[in-house]
């Protein structure tokens, strides 16, 4: 049964890169190539605009599932995984004839190609007229990946076109449907932290808000705790949102916050930066005119570098710095390491379940305001630190004990990479 009907590519092999999941056949590869077939581009929009819309449509799916999509303009057409083309009536060698403007506007082949009816009036994302090419492309890509139609309100897989919806995004249920086929996104983070902002609340009263950020390599995501997902359109490149920081992820972030101090520090390699929350950029120099970045050994005597991670414990007014198998408790008032430190991480944060401990090289130590708990993240797992509330309920738990590991993706959802070529969309 031929998989594709673009005569330009006659004789293309039936797709070898498929495997079967419980829900049917799915792509076996994690990076899939796509191409708008030049001879089959639409005459209605500039070709560059069509390709930009398709790049965005593929990126929307890769933001929620462990698949990357890259546009392949150079390789042999037969090797491209997903081909997109426009045609009228009997088109592109396809056995299914388009019906003219109205009714059927596109169709797709599972693990294969997507055809758009050129007789329809397709429009770019910011236009109200016609049929949104982005919406149709996202829908048809859903079919290619293996999703059937859904009549659930709000689903992008509804068979009929719904004009002028509010924000067109993949909702929770669409995400879970595609993750049944391809799994959810996993992977270690370089840093995770909550950023506290002072804002004007209702009736002009000062209010405190926090945003949760995850960093990995040169990218970051804002995580919307109340929506259980990352911000639509993330990840973003670090320089786009953090001015003055290096382009690659920081090793650690601490927010030293006491009644008299509100200081935010980023650590990378042997240096550290102080960040100006109001101006949203790194400070140029400290109060004594010393320029940033500064050596960690100067600003935090006794602390080694490079660091694995760090977090600030507000009640104790201590910064816990982690490096390899050791942890250093740094007294921010006396500006020195506590005498009883460094300690083995396994000693300062003992396992609750025998044998279940990250032991060393922690990726990120993160105090979460949303969960009112400290988490140690390593690889795709996290360990939650026993809190005072835990010990009031279960007194036998050791202070700062580590509860058994859990997958990060069980608590923070859909923090997915995208292909580097689509990072700055």
């Amino acid at each position: 049964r031929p998989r594709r009907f673009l005569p330009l590519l006659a004789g293309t092999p039936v797709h070898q890169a498929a495997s079967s999941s419980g829900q049917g056949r799915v792509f076996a590869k994690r990076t899939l190539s796509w191409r708008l077939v030049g001879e089959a581009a639409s005459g209605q929009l500039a070709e560059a605009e069509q390709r930009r819309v398709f790049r965005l449509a593929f990126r929307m799916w890769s933001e929620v599932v462990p698949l990357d999509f890259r546009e392949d303009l150079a390789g042999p057409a037969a090797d491209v995984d997903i081909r997109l083309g426009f045609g009228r009536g009997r088109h592109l060698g396809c056995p299914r004839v388009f019906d003219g403007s109205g009714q059927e506007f596109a169709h797709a082949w599972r693990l294969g190609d997507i055809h758009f009816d050129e007789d329809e009036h397709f429009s770019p994302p910011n236009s109200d007229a016609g049929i949104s090419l982005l919406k149709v492309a996202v829908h048809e890509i859903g079919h290619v990946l293996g999703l059937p139609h859904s009549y659930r309100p709000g689903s992008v897989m509804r068979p009929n076109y719904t004009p002028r919806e509010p924000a067109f995004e993949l909702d929770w249920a669409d995400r879970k449907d595609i993750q049944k086929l391809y799994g959810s996104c996993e992977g270690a983070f370089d840093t995770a932290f909550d950023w506290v902002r002072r804002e004007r609340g209702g009736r002009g009263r000062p209010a405190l808000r926090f945003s949760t950020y995850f960093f990995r390599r040169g990218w970051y995501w804002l995580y919307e705790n109340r929506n259980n997902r990352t911000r639509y359109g993330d990840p973003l490149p670090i320089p786009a949102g953090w001015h003055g920081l290096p382009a690659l992820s920081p090793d650690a972030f601490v927010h030293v916050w006491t009644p008299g101090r509100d200081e935010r520090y980023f650590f990378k390699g042997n240096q550290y930066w102080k960040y100006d929350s109001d101006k949203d950029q790194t400070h140029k120099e400290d109060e004594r005119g010393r320029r940033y970045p500064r050596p960690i050994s100067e600003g935090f005597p006794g602390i080694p570098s490079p660091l694995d991670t760090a977090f600030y414990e507000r009640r104790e007014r201590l910064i816990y710095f982690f490096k390899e198998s050791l942890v250093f408790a740094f007294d921010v008032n006396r500006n020195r390491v506590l005498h009883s430190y460094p300690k083995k991480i396994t000693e300062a944060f003992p396992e609750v379940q025998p044998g279940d401990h990250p032991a060393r090289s922690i990726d990120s130590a993160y105090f979460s305001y949303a969960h009112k708990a400290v988490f140690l993240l390593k690889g795709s797992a996290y360990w939650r630190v026993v809190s005072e509330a835990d010990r009031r309920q279960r007194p036998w738990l050791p202070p700062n004990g580590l509860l058994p590991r859990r997958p990060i993706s069980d608590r923070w959802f859909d923090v997915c990479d995208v292909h580097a070529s689509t990072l700055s969309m």
Partner: protein
Amino acid sequence: ETLFHSRDRSDLEPAPQRRAKPITDHHAAQRFLSKYGWTEAPGARGVSPEEPPAATLAEAVRRFQEANALHPSGELDAPTLAAMNRPRCGVPDMQPLPRTAVSDPLPRNPLPGVSVPRA
């Protein structure tokens, strides 16, 4: 370029014959239901090539109406025909309910009208 001859390119507009034929009658509705998987395609899996019995059709119409939040009358009333004429994707909505009790997975080859050898 996309070929046109009129100065104002009005002939670029889809020629009248290029408009999808509206679904207004029983036969067109039945083709729609078969095309999008609400009834077995004629000739598929031993289905008799002539028209399916009225009861089967009414049942298919009722299921289509329920999926589209319409009154499940089983009749081809105006709201049902309007729903059939809305812009839509060409992939079928479901595998038609098989005559046997075996449920079909997502169609390997979702485009109906193409006879797919069944395993």
